[in-house]
């Protein structure tokens, strides 16, 4: 097939843009990290190795914990029917879509040493001090398990829904009992889903910043270590640390990839999924329903606490179990004080700008990769997916280093300190989300629809706006809303790259916490949560 040269040129242009924002900064940091002094410092200091090792084992244990919660939940909700199954089933997937920072501070207000539960126990038992301190590795793992089980839950449910009931019946007809069917048919068929969930959990835990930052105390993982080093001004060491973290991420990804097995397993899954079985015994049914509802309350409790704290004015809640005063003072301050409204507006416009650009780039990529099947299509897809595989801190440091120098010939410009750097950082993180959504939608789009439009006399623009975009809408909206919400709640890139003028909500939440303005911090968290939920709700509408 002879392709028009124009699309190949466009593909080359797109590849250059993506390479410039995605891989070039990493290469700059990689080259700069080959600094013998900094390398020596990294190798010699036990603290560095401890942080790296902490990152690895925290991530691995997070995977185990998330699997232990998520997989049984998925079986419960996919295979058994009990009152409230549908509502609960979607409620418990909620933590994954809320900004991590919001979840972490909600956790702090509920389970922290001055949190709701600690206060209640302290008052009930008349203790001198708080019964526990929510700090260190255990606290981090608790938060990780609480938010990341959703990956296993969602992936396992999707895998179970794809199972062909005929395959289970075939196993039974061949004499396999329930246990044999589970071990020899179901688990092997679920393996791709489970590996996918494990990969996602591992990478998320490895890149996790807010939980170790808030709860870590003296316990450092690599992400917090890097930011601390950067704040101390030791840039060469920060770069070495960044490269070390990136290497761990890539190694983890490669090892997990190897266990993924054949795609044939997935491709075979074409049939009718087993219907959820109603639980016959009334007592068991009620037990399941109670468990389910109890769990949902447990999972949503932090966010309810956040809402409560946001209603308590500054200094009003000291030693009481329940707040003595509740009003909307914090929200009023949020919207009436210019200095507090500003971070909100900053986050909104920066998230919107990065999302729009990410959508446009992903649309171009979809057209070039799927429709035109350009020569560079694999590279384009790889560049779009790469930011997903590396922790956000890695990109933040890479951008901070690369774009703090004026060297036009090297395509390096001073963007750090300007309003452009944070949207650029958000854009990099948004590319995998919009890219995945739009490319998948493009692949499902029947090319004959566009041909039909052309044969009816529609030009390119009309075909794009009247046929292609409406058909891509679900994938586009899903990708764009996820990207927007991720940028809105971002802390990883923001904490490295913000300036006072461009400070986003997450930074404002942290500084409010620091000056004990918990009510305002909670109000910010609630607003962030509501905007995120609203955007995601709109994005998920069919």
């Amino acid at each position, binding site marked *: *097939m*002879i392709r028009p040269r124009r699309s190949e040129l466009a593909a080359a242009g797109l590849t250059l843009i993506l390479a410039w924002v995605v891989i070039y900064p990493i290469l700059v940091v990689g080259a700069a990290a080959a600094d013998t002094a900094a390398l020596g410092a990294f190798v010699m200091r036990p603290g560095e190795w401890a942080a790296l090792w902490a990152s690895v084992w925290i991530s691995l244990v997070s995977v185990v914990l998330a699997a232990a919660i998520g997989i049984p939940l998925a079986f419960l909700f996919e295979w058994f029917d009990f009152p409230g199954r549908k509502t609960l089933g979607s409620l418990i997937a909620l933590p994954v879509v809320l900004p991590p920072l919001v979840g972490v501070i909600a956790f702090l207000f509920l389970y922290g040493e001055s949190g709701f539960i600690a206060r209640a126990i302290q008052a009930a038992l008349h203790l001198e001090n708080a019964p526990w301190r929510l700090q260190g590795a255990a606290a981090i793992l608790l938060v990780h398990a609480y938010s990341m089980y959703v990956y296993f839950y969602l992936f396992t449910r999707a895998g179970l829904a794809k199972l062909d009931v005929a395959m289970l019946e075939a196993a039974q007809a061949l004499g396999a009992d329930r246990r044999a069917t589970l071990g020899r048919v179901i688990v092997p068929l679920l393996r791709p889903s489970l590996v996918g969930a494990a990969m996602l959990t591992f990478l998320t835990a490895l890149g996790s910043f807010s939980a170790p930052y808030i709860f870590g105390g003296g316990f450092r993982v690599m992400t917090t270590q890097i930011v601390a080093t950067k704040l101390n001004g030791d840039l060469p060491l920060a770069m070495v640390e960044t490269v070390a973290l990136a290497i761990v991420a890539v190694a983890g990804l490669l090892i997990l990839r190897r266990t993924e097995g054949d795609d044939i397993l997935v491709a075979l899954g074409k049939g009718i999924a087993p219907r959820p079985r109603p639980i016959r015994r009334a007592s068991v049914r009620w037990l399941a329903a109670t468990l389910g509802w109890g769990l949902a309350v447990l999972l949503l409790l932090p966010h309810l606490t956040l809402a409560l704290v946001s209603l308590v004015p500054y200094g009003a809640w000291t030693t009481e179990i329940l707040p003595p005063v509740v009003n909307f003072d914090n929200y009023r301050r949020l919207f009436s004080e210019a200095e507090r409204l500003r971070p909100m507006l900053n986050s909104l416009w920066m998230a919107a700008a990065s999302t729009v650009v990410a959508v446009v780039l992903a649309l171009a990529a979809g057209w070039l990769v799927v429709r035109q099947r350009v020569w560079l299509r694999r590279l384009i897809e790889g560049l779009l997916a790469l930011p997903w595989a590396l922790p956000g801190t890695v990109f933040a440091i890479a951008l901070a280093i690369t774009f703090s120098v004026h060297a036009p010939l090297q395509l390096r410009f001073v963007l750090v300190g300007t309003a452009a750097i944070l949207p650029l950082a958000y854009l990099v993180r948004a590319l995998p989300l919009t890219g995945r959504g739009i490319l998948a939608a493009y692949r499902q789009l*029947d090319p*004959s*629809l566009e*041909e*039909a*439009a*052309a*044969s*009816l*006399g*529609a*030009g390119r623009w009309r*075909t794009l706006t*009247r*046929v292609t975009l*409406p*058909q891509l*809408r679900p994938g586009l909206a899903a990708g764009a809303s996820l990207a927007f919400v991720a940028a809105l709640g971002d802390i990883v890139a923001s904490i490295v790259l913000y300036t006072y003028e461009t400070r986003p909500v997450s930074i404002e939440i942290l500084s409010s916490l620091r000056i004990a303005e918990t009510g305002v911090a909670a109000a910010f968290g609630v607003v962030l949560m509501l905007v995120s939920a609203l955007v995601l709700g709109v994005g998920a509408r069919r």
Partner: protein
Amino acid sequence: MGPTRARHRGGGPLTAPFLEIQAIEKRWSHDVTVGPITLDIARGEILALLGPSGSGKTTMLRLLAGFETADAGRIAVANEDVTAVPPARRRFGMVFQHYALFPHLDVGDNVGFGLPKSPDRDARITAALGLVDLAGFARRKVHELSGGQQQRVSVARALAPEPRVLMLDEPLSNLDPALRERTRHELREVIKRVGITTVFVTHEQEEAFDLGDRIAVLNQGRLEQVGAPDVLYEHPANLFVATFVGRANVFRGNAARALGGNGKGILVARPERLRFSEAGLPGVVRERRYVGAAAFFLIESDDHQHFEVLAEPDAARVGQRVYVEATRVIAL
């Protein structure tokens, strides 16, 4: 078999050509090529492109529509060269195999998609829907329609902008057999009523015979023969056309001589043109397949050639020794 060697007996268009295809060619790779193909189609004629899968018939249709660009050759309609004209400006209507109805638009907006904004737009949508017997369906959702109705909407949508040529890609392949025959007749009636020049692709001989005024038989990217259905059936240009169009027994050597051939070359005889007799080609009945009004008898000749005879259901028994003679043979 090059197109130059394909016989065009009875293959010329009835009047001056409206759609001209001249030595059109598409090279997918060095060993997969469609064409060069030359074909003329008269105004108002229905031409069927018939061939097995991979014969290049869909490529031909897509070249005509402009979705593929030809590597050589020329396409002209009403003396206008459209070889380089993009699909959107070609004014060729197309009915897709899976209909390609826009799922986000209702029936009326689908049919009106190709119509300019004008006061009579709604009237034209109504007229197009009336043409396919779907008056009153304009506000229906596409996915609420049955397969047959979707097919008719796609025909209405293609016809609404009053294209110069109508093209259909396997238009009936998605319908169940019972519906297929009825839809075929309705389709022919609509096309004839509009009087539009039509090219359609099919791999089914019955569909090609029933719908097409003429049939172009394609095989491995080459045009084997063009002609009216009875010409193809009675005077196939070569062995491929003889065996692809209708059932055919192929005889060689002594068997061919016993049926009246000169002993060189190949003899083709349709099953219904063979009958049991007192003398002729001897053989043994190996199988009998009853089809209602008649039965197919599978005969093995003494030199182990197998062939079929269509005869009265009780004309012979399995295992019986018979003699077969031909009422009509095709010598190739």
